[in-house]
C-alpha cells in the first residue's frame, strides 16, 4: 500500500535563521527520495492560496503530504483541510517535526533528514535510530542525590542491582530536604524524605558517593566507563562519629548552603542534622588550614585519632556502568537581577527559599521570622536575636518566571509553594496579614485546587495582579500592585516581602551534558528523546533524565519521572540488552533501514 504513496513535502522554514538549518540541503535530500514527487515551501502555498495548492495536489496526483520543519505542526490542520478538499484522506498528512526529536541545531541536519525520510516512508524514527543491541552492565550510575536521584536509586536497588549514586555536595537530600512542608498535603518534607535518605544510606545495593563529581564518561550504551572525582572530604567517613566537637571549635564560618545562606556554618560541617551520610566534611574553600596552611584546631579536638586528615587529596575512581540516570536538579533564580523588588537592598525582602528555612523548626531561628542583619564579619544572616512578628506580609509570584526579560517559562511550583508558605505564615503569625500577588493561579495537580480554596478560606488575601515594585517611602516599605479583580491600586505597607523565585537549570547542566554527550535546550534543561512519548530517554541510549533538570516540576512528577527512568534501566537489565541509540549519526547509516521499513 505504501508503494502507491505519491508524496508531497511541504517545508516550513520558520525558525531556520536562528538554528542555522540549511533548508536547501534538506529540500535537495527530500527531492531525491523516490516517493516524493513535489516539494513546496509553505510561504509559497500561503502566498498563492488554497486554491492553487489544491489544484497542484490534484494535478500531481499526490495522496500523502509530509510537513517538514522545526515546528511544522501549525500548518497541519490547514493542509489536512487542503487534502480533504482535494478529495484525499486528510489523515494522510504527516509531520516531520525536527524539534520532536530535539533536532534543532545545524549539527542535527542528518537527524532532520532521517526524520523527513521516516515520515515519507512511514518508518518509526525511534526504531531507526537504534543501532543494534548491546549487552548491558547491570550497574547503574545515578548523578544527583535529590529526591529524583534517591527515588531512581531505590527503585533500581529494589531489584538487587548495583547503583552508584554520585552527589556533588556532602549529603543527599537535595532541595527537598530544605523545605519545611510540602504542598498540598502539608507533610513535613523531612518526615517523608529522611526515611528514604536513610534507606539509601543503608541499602546494600547502593554505593553512595557524596562530595563527588562525574569527570568523564566513555563507552557506549550498556557499557559506560565513568571517571568520578571524589573530592577530599578530609574527614574519614568510617571513623567520624558525628560528635561535632570539631565544628564547635572550628574558627571559620561561611554561609550554609543547606540553609540557603540564612545562617552560617563552620568550615568543618555536617550539611544538616539528618544528612546522609551523617558525617562531617571540610569545605576547602574556607578552611583556614587548607587556605593558609595554619590552624588544624579540628584535628586537635577530634576524639578519634586519624579521623581528620587535613592533607587528604582528591581521588579519581573509575567505575563501569550500563546505564546512567541524570538527576542533577536545579538552582533558584537570583532575585537580585530584578532591581525593582529591592532584594539585596531591603533586608525585609527575602526569597521563598530563605523563608522555607526561616519557617522551618530546624532553621536558623527555630521556625520564627527574623530580620536579616549583617554580622560583625559582614555576612547577612538571620539571627535568632532579631526575631520579630511581621504584621503585613506580601508574597510575590513569578519572580524571574513567565517574564521575557528573565526566564520565559513557568516554574510550575511557585504558585503552590507560595500558597503553602502563606499557610505556614498564617499559622505561625495569626494576626498578620498575608497577601499573595499572582498572575494566573496554577493549582493544577491532584488536590491542588482544593488546597488553593482552603488557603483562600484561611484568610490569606489573594490578589490577582503582579506586584511591580517594592520601595521605601519614608520609613515604610511599600509593595505596589494592581488589584485587577477589584479595580484598584494596592499600596501595601509591609514588614516582610517574600519573592517566589523561579527555578533555573543547574549551573552544571551544560557541563554534564557535554560529559555525557547529550544536549540541553536554550534554558539549560536537558532535552528528552521525545518530549511526548519518551519523556525520560535522551538521544543517547542508556542515558536518562529525571526530575527538575529536565524542566521545572513538582515532587510527585519528579518521583514518577525518576521511577520511569528506573524502569528504562530495569528493562535493559531484565532483558540483558540495550538499544544502541546514538546521539550523532549520519543519514547514510540509517537510510537502508528506512527504505526497508
Amino acid at each position, binding site marked *: 500500500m505504501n508503494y502507491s504513496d505519491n508524496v508531497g513535502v511541504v517545508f516550513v522554514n520558520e525558525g531556520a535563521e536562528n538554528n542555522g538549518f540549511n533548508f536547501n540541503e534538506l529540500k535537495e535530500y527530500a527531492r531525491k527520495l523516490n516517493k516524493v514527487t513535489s516539494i513546496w515551501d509553505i510561504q509559497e502555498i500561503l502566498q498563492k492560496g488554497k486554491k492553487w495548492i489544491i489544484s497542484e495536489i490534484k494535478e500531481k496526483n499526490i495522496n500523502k503530504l509530509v510537513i517538514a520543519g522545526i515546528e511544522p505542526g501549525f500548518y497541519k490542520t490547514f493542509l489536512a483541510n487542503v487534502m*480533504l478538499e482535494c478529495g484525499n484522506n486528510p489523515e494522510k498528512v504527516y509531520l516531520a517535526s525536527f524539534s*520532536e526529536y530535539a533536532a534543532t541545531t545545524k549539527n542535527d541536519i542528518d537527524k532532520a533528514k532521517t526524520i523527513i525520510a521516516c515520515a515519507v516512508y512511514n518508518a518509526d524514527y525511534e526504531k531507526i535510530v537504534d543501532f543494534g543491541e548491546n549487552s548491558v552492565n547491570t550497574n547503574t550510575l545515578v548523578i544527583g542525590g535529590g529526591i529524583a536521584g534517591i527515588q531512581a536509586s531505590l527503585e533500581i536497588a529494589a531489584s538487587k542491582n548495583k547503583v552508584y549514586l554520585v552527589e556533588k555536595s556532602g549529603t543527599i537530600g537535595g532541595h527537598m530536604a530544605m523545605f519545611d512542608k510540602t504542598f498540598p498535603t502539608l507533610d513535613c518534607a523531612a518526615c517523608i524524605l529522611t526515611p528514604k535518605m536513610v534507606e539509601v544510606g543503608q541499602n546494600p545495593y547502593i554505593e553512595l558517593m557524596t562530595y563527588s563529581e562525574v569527570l568523564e564518561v566513555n563507552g557506549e550504551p550498556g557499557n559506560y566507563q565513568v571517571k568520578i572525582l571524589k573530592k577530599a572530604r578530609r574527614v574519614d567517613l568510617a571513623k567520624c562519629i558525628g560528635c561535632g566537637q570539631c565544628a564547635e571549635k572550628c574558627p571559620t564560618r561561611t554561609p550554609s548552603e543547606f540553609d540557603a545562606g540564612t545562617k552560617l556554618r563552620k568550615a568543618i560541617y555536617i550539611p544538616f542534622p539528618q544528612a546522609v551520610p551523617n558525617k562531617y566534611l571540610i569545605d576547602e574553600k574556607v578552611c583556614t588550614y587548607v587556605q593558609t596552611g595554619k590552624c588544624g584546631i579540628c584535628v586537635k579536638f577530634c576524639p578519634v585519632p586519624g579521623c581528620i586528615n587535613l592533607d587528604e587529596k582528591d581521588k579519581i575512581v573509575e567505575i563501569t556502568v550500563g546505564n546512567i540516570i541524570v538527576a542533577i536538579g536545579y538552582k533558584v533564580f537570583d532575585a537580585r537581577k530584578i532591581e525593582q523588588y529591592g532584594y539585596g537592598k531591603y533586608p525585609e525582602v527575602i526569597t521563598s527559599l530563605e523563608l522555607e528555612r526561616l519557617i522551618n*523548626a530546624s532553621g536558623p531561628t527555630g521556625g520564627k521570622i527574623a530580620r536579616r542583619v549583617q554580622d560583625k564579619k559582614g555576612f547577612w544572616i538571620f539571627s535568632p536575636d532579631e526575631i520579630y512578628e511581621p504584621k503585613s506580609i506580601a508574597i510575590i509570584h513569578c519572580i524571574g518566571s513567565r517574564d521575557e526579560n528573565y526566564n520565559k517559562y513557568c516554574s510550575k511550583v511557585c504558585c503552590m509553594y507560595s500558597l503553602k508558605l502563606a499557610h505556614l505564615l498564617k499559622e505561625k503569625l495569626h494576626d498578620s496579614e498575608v497577601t499573595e500577588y499572582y498572575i494566573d493561579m496554577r493549582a493544577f495537580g491532584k488536590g491542588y485546587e482544593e488546597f488553593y480554596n482552603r488557603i483562600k478560606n484561611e484568610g490569606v488575601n489573594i490578589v490577582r495582579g503582579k506586584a511591580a515594585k517594592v520601595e521605601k517611602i519614608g520609613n515604610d516599605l511599600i509593595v505596589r500592585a494592581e488589584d*485587577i479583580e477589584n479595580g484598584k491600586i494596592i499600596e501595601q505597607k509591609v514588614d516582610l516581602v517574600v519573592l517566589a523565585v523561579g527555578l533555573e537549570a543547574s549551573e552544571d547542566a551544560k557541563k554534564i551534558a557535554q560529559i555525557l554527550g547529550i544536549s540541553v535546550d536554550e534554558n539549560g534543561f536537558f532535552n528528552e528523546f521525545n518530549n*511526548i*512519548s519518551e519523556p*525520560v530517554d535522551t538521544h543517547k541510549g542508556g542515558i536518562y533524565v529525571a526530575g527538575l533538570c529536565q524542566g521545572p516540576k513538582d515532587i510527585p512528577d519528579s518521583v514518577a519521572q525518576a521511577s*520511569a527512568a528506573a524502569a528504562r534501566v530495569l528493562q535493559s537489565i531484565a532483558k540483558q540488552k540495550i538499544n544502541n541509540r546514538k546521539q550523532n549519526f549520519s543519514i547514510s547509516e540509517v537510510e537502508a533501514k528506512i527504505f526497508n521499513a
Partner: protein
Amino acid sequence: MKELRIGVYVCHCGTNIAAMVDVEKLAKELSEVKNVIVARDYKYMCSDPGQDLIIKDIQEHKLNRIVVAACSPRMHEVTFRKALEKAGLNPYYLEMANIREQCSWVHTNRNEATIKAKDLILAAIKRVKWHEPLDKRSVPINEATLIIGGGISGISAALELANAGKKVYLVEKSNKLGGIMNQIDLTFPFLNSARQILDRKLSEVVNHPNIEIFLNTEIGEIFGYIGNFETQINGNKIVFGNIIVATGLKPFDASRIPEYGYGKLPDVITSLEFENMLKSGDIKTKSGKQPQSIAIIHCVGSRNEKYNVYCSRVCCLTALKYINQINSVLPETSIFDIYADMRTFGKYCEEFYSSTSRKNVTFLVFDQKNELPKIREASSSDKCNLIINFREKLSGEIIEVPADMVILMVGMEAHEAAKEVAHKVGVSMCGNNFYIERHPKLDPVATTTDGVYVVGTCQAPKDIPDSISQAKAAAARILATIEAKTVDVEVTTAFINEDLCCGCQTCIKVCPYSAISFDAVKKVSIVNEVLCKGCGTCAAACPTGAAKAKHFTDVQILSQIEGLFSYA
C-alpha cells in the same frame, strides 16, 4: 509468658510534638509504669541516632516490647519495625502511639494534649503486652502483568514490561486500543502529531510477542495477592504477579451545566467533538458554514464546587492548541478564549501561550466559580449564531461575545468503569472517584494494595507525557519486584483457631476475598492466608471467638481501650 520488658520512646519531632506535648514529663512519668523498663524522649526518633537508641536499649535492657510515641504509624511504623528487626526482636513487638497527627498537631491546649498523649501511650503499653511475633513471609513472583485499560498509559506500561521480556495481558473494554488519544489530533506545546505517536506505539504493541491483547473484554473477579493473582478472561484462567490499572478518563458531561445549553444549542460543542473536526481541518457550524468567530470556554465542569472542584490540568493547553489549529485553517476567524486562570505550566508551555497570543485571538477571563457565562441563541440581527454573556473579570465589564461556534473545554472525570475495577482489584478512591495513590508525594503510582498500581488519568487528570511517565514508573516497580524474584506478603491476616471453631460458617460469606473455606472433614472454617488481606471483619463476626485478626486481636484492642482509661 516471659517477663514483660517494655521500652517506651517519646519523640519530640523537632518541635512538632514537643511544642504541644510535654514529652520530657511524659517520658519521666511513663518510666514508672509497670513493666516499663526504659522510657526516653528524643528529638527525632525516626532519625538514625533515634533508631540506634532503640536498638541499643533492646540489646542492653533485654527489652521485649517497644512502644514508640511519635507520628502516625502510617508514616513510620515500618521504619521502627525495621529497627526492632535489626535489634533481633520480632518487628511486631512494636506499637506506636500517634501523638503527632492525632494529637500535637490538632490540639491547642498543651496540658490537655499531654494528657491525651499519655492516654494514647498507656494504651499502647497495655496493647503491646499482647502482641505476638509474626513472621514475614515471601512468595514467588509471577512475571506476567495484567494491565487494565488500553489507553496510552496502559500501552506504555505494556511496552516497557514487554520489552523487558515479561508477559503482559492487556485488557481493553472497548474494541480498540489507544483510548482517548485516538481522538486527539495534535499534541501541545509543539503541535506534534498525536496520531503518529500513537500509531508507532500501537504497531509495536499489536505485534509484540510478549503482549496478549484482549479487546471488548471486562475483567472478572481477581483473586490472589501480589506475585500471584489470577482471574478468568473469556473463560480462560490467567495468572499474573502484578496489576496496572489504567482505566483512564471520562469527559465531563457538558449538558450538566444549564448555562451553556450544550445539547440544546447545536453550535455549542465539546472539545472532543471539536478535536474530531480538526483531524480534517473541516471546521463548520451545524449549518455547514465557516464560523466567523469561535469562542472557547475553559474549566467546563472543573474548578467549580457544583461540578468538580479540581482542575483538569490539560484544558488550558488544549485550548491554546485549538487556537493555533483554527488559526491554521481559518486565519480570518476571530477566536475568543474565555479562561479563568491560564495554566500553562509545563516545559515550553508558557512559551506556547505567548506565541499563541500573537494569533487572531482575544483572551477573556470569567469567574469559573460563581458566575458562569450564559450562552444564548443570537437574534437574526446579530450576524452570528450565539451570544455569550458574562462578566469579564479583568475589566469588570459585563460583556457579550458574539460567536458562531462555542467549544466547551470539558474537564476530566474518572472513567465509569473505575469504581467497579477498584472493587475488583482492591484500591481505594477519593471522593471524586480518582484512585488514591499510596503516597501523594513519594509514591504516586503504587496503591495501598501491594502489586496493584494506578497510572494515568485514572489517578488524577494529567497530560500524555505525565501519563507515560507514570506508566513507566509503575513498570519500574514491577520490573524491580520481578528482578528481586520474591515479595513479602501481608502477615497481619486472619486466623481461625480450630479448637474453638464450631463450624457455623458465619465467617465464610463475610470475607470479601473468599479467603475462608469450610473444611468438611474437620468441620471448621479455615483461612487461606495469602488471599486474606487482614480486614478482620470475620473476627468481628465470629460468634465463637475462633476467628482472630492477627495484630488486631480482641485482647489487644480491649487492652488498648483499657489503657486509654488507665490514667485519669
